[in-house]
């Protein structure tokens, strides 16, 4: 075998080669569909007796031919650009190199496993409602539907995915006490005066609309009673009450209450 040229002395023969290893080792990495590019050092785990000549790094199979992977021979970083709209699956890039003694390595594979982004269900804001009972607010709010969203950055999955927020669903979001957005409908729950003389005189306004109210959970006084429109309320003779009659008039059902004290003549 001719060993050299461009020399007046030309040599033929063969020499032994020192044993060596030039092994490119496969790499695996995982990313998700949100990621546009990944960077790794593929030669970090490769094995070479003589040392790797970074300038000889060669990609034999690209992941994205539209935007080929970028190799930096200075720091050994390989940046792989994922295809636009990449779907979950495995993408393979193959490479090889020469060592400092010009020995070619095997081809190694970088397997990029692309996984779908993790999602969850959360309340769907447009489906917000106040919980009603008997036509009045209970002080609770709830969402009628749920939307899917990404866990990593809390953005809503596009296109929008929704499902009913139903009890029994593992993602069910129960109603919450929400006085700010869903105040309970006012209740008559105040101290009604009475006249022991017991005949009716002209009723007078005791409380202006919406002056006093409380919830079932936090009764202002003893009574918390929901009135229908124009319903007369007879307070029982209990807790020091004497069975006097008061009339309350609901001007607008469930929202505004006028309470009048009416004196009765027995």
């Amino acid at each position, binding site marked *: 075998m001719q060993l050299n*040229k461009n*020399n007046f002395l030309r040599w033929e023969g063969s020499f032994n080669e020192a044993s060596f290893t030039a092994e490119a080792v496969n790499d695996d990495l995982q990313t998700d569909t949100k990621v546009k590019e990944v960077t790794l050092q593929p030669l970090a785990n490769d094995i070479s007796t003589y040392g790797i000549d970074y300038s000889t790094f060669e990609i034999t199979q690209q992941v994205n031919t539209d935007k080929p992977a970028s190799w930096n021979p200075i720091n050994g970083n390989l940046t792989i650009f994922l295809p636009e709209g990449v779907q979950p699956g495995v993408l393979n890039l193959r490479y090889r190199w020469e060592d400092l003694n010009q020995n070619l390595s095997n081809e190694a594979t970088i397997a990029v496993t692309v996984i779908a982004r993790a999602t969850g269900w959360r309340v769907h804001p447009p489906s917000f409602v106040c919980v009603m009972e008997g036509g009045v607010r209970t002080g609770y709010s709830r969402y009628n539907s749920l939307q899917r969203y990404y866990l990593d950055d809390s953005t809503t999955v596009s296109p929008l995915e929704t499902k009913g927020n139903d009890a029994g669903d593992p993602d069910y979001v129960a109603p919450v006490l929400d006085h700010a957005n869903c105040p309970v409908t006012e209740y008559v729950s105040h101290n009604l005066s009475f006249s022991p003389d017991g005949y009716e005189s002209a009723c007078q306004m005791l409380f202006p609309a919406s002056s006093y109210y409380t919830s079932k959970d936090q009764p202002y006084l003893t009574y918390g009673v929901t009135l229908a429109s124009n319903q007369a309320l007879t307070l029982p003779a209990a807790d020091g009450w004497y069975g006097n009659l008061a009339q309350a008039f609901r001007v607008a059902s469930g929202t505004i209450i006028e309470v009048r004290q009416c004196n009765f003549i027995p």
Partner: protein
Amino acid sequence: MIKKGYIKDNRSFNVPYIPGENYTFYINFDKPISDPDFADFVLQIRRGDELVVDNAATLQRHFIRNISYNIYCEFIFPAIPEGCYQFVIYDKVKQIEKCRSNSIECTNDPFGVLAKVEYRNKSDLYEFQYESNVFHNIFSLPIFQVDLQFETDRKQYRNVSDRRIRNLRSFRDKVITAELYWLDDDAHEAASAMFMHSDIKFNGTYYEPKGAYEIETVVLLNIAKGRIELYVAATGSTLNVLVWSQDGFNIVSQNGFNMIQIR
């Protein structure tokens, strides 16, 4: 490779060596070797299988990358009978021949046709790793000067007051035509490569190629003359000196042939 036609004379070029002269060679391997048995290698001179000189010189390694290396040698050619031989690198422990050179010719150069040639390059060239060592290739080659010309580049004007010609710039080169005798194709390739080097010295004088190396092919012969025009350059790396004269500064090469005059 295409075969040569019409060859009636199949002689090849034998690299000449004169006993007692110092020489070097550098094996510019196409791919540096990493043979771990280098310590067992010796340089032999053989005529066919006949061993003529067992340990002609000490071989040296020039490491290129990690443990890969080229082999070079600086030696005085031994006093052996005139004739054709080959260099052999031999593993004296395993007792196997590792490689063998083309034919060399031991000659006392009775007609004085040989010139001592030294050359190297400022950077790596043709697998010669010059940048990491100070190696010079030293050979004897049959080379002659067959022509001499002078080239001048002059810009002048006539002085109005005294009507004398004044030189604005004057530059002269000495150009020789050299011929190398009876080289085969491989030797022409080597000569062509030699003339690509930056520092070329024949018998102690530096030369710089002017044009391309040309081969005067004779179709019936396997060997042919090589021809090239060479500038005779200044010796050493200090090419020019600055001289003050009554006409101004003159940049004059050390051999006196080149001159730039600045007024």
